[in-house]
């Protein structure tokens, strides 16, 4: 059973959660990709209430305007570098080492994808990379398939969390296999973060209702018609879904169950 959280007057959970060696208040992690401008990204990150944001590493472009690092520093957020675009364990490990040098952080969102059409993780390369990075002292957060066995193997390899996808990156198709997510949550002893596939607020709420500890999303906010508004919606959805999980939902029934007592019904 999840622990009882301290509640504020508004009923929102005030409890923190542990990821790596740190405590966090927000259960929403936002990717910085896909925003139309840095200004829009800044407003949206603020509205999301996120404390952790992901960034990618790319070649320095002398023509680029503005710096994503400056925005994130100004907001006081924790920068989680990813290994997006890596297809092999070798490339992912080298990218993680570059990120450690660039940002002075051991944390890495590990992505090792199999092809550019599905962007689905390459399970074998992912596990190899996770093992190497853990051995190298990294705090590894792997983006993984919604496969309970692979999730267990990643946890056994020493990852501090497992981050199963709901559906392919950027698809907005929501959580296609909630049964697998539930199994991953049941067996995991590290935080489970639903990563990828979120399309709208109800998807994020569902992830939390299934027992995930947090949600990581990017496109659902950055490519929404109004990213700032959607960021706020996701923030509320994660809080609501987490509260609903702890509250314990009623079972689903085929037939009705009256909430009004029959006793004392007047004969008219």
């Amino acid at each position: 059973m999840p622990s009882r959280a301290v509640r504020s007057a508004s009923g929102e959970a005030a409890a923190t959660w542990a990821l790596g060696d740190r405590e966090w208040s927000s259960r929403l992690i936002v990717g910085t990709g896909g925003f139309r401008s840095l200004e829009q990204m800044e407003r949206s990150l603020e509205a999301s209430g996120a404390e952790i944001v992901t960034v990618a590493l790319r070649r320095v472009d002398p023509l680029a305007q503005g710096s994503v690092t400056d925005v994130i520093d100004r907001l006081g957020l924790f920068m989680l570098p990813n290994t997006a675009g890596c297809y092999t364990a070798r490339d992912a490990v080298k990218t993680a080492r570059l990120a450690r040098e660039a940002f002075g952080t051991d944390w890495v969102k590990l992505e090792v994808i199999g092809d550019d059409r599905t962007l689905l993780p390459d399970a074998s390369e992912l596990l190899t990379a996770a093992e190497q990075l853990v051995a190298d002292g990294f705090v590894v957060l792997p983006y993984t398939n919604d496969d309970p066995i692979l999730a267990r193997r990643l946890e056994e390899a020493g990852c501090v969390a497992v981050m199963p996808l709901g559906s392919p990156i950027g698809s907005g198709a929501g959580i296609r296999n909630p049964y697998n997510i539930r199994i991953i949550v049941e067996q995991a002893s590290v935080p489970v973060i639903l990563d990828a596939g979120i399309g709208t607020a109800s998807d994020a709420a569902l992830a939390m209702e299934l027992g995930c500890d947090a949600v990581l999303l990017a496109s659902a906010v950055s490519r929404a018609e109004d990213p700032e508004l959607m960021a706020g919606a996701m923030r509320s959805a994660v809080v609501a879904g987490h509260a609903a999980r702890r509250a314990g939902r009623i079972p689903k029934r085929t037939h009705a169950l009256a909430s009004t007592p029959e006793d004392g019904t007047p004969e008219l």
Partner: protein
Amino acid sequence: MRVVLNGESRELPEDSTVAHAVSLTGASEVERGIAVAVDGEVVPRGEWEGRILSEGESVEVVHAVQGG
């Protein structure tokens, strides 16, 4: 001496250092969040001035960009 800098073949003076290569990318020396790899291996910032490049080496100079 020819090296490959961020994917482009460049002619650099003999005994050019990693620091020189970084400056050619337009990156500011003081900008936070820049990292360099030479032939795939990270060169820590403290070694940029002292690390002399050799003919044919590949230098990658990267920084943070928006990404999921």
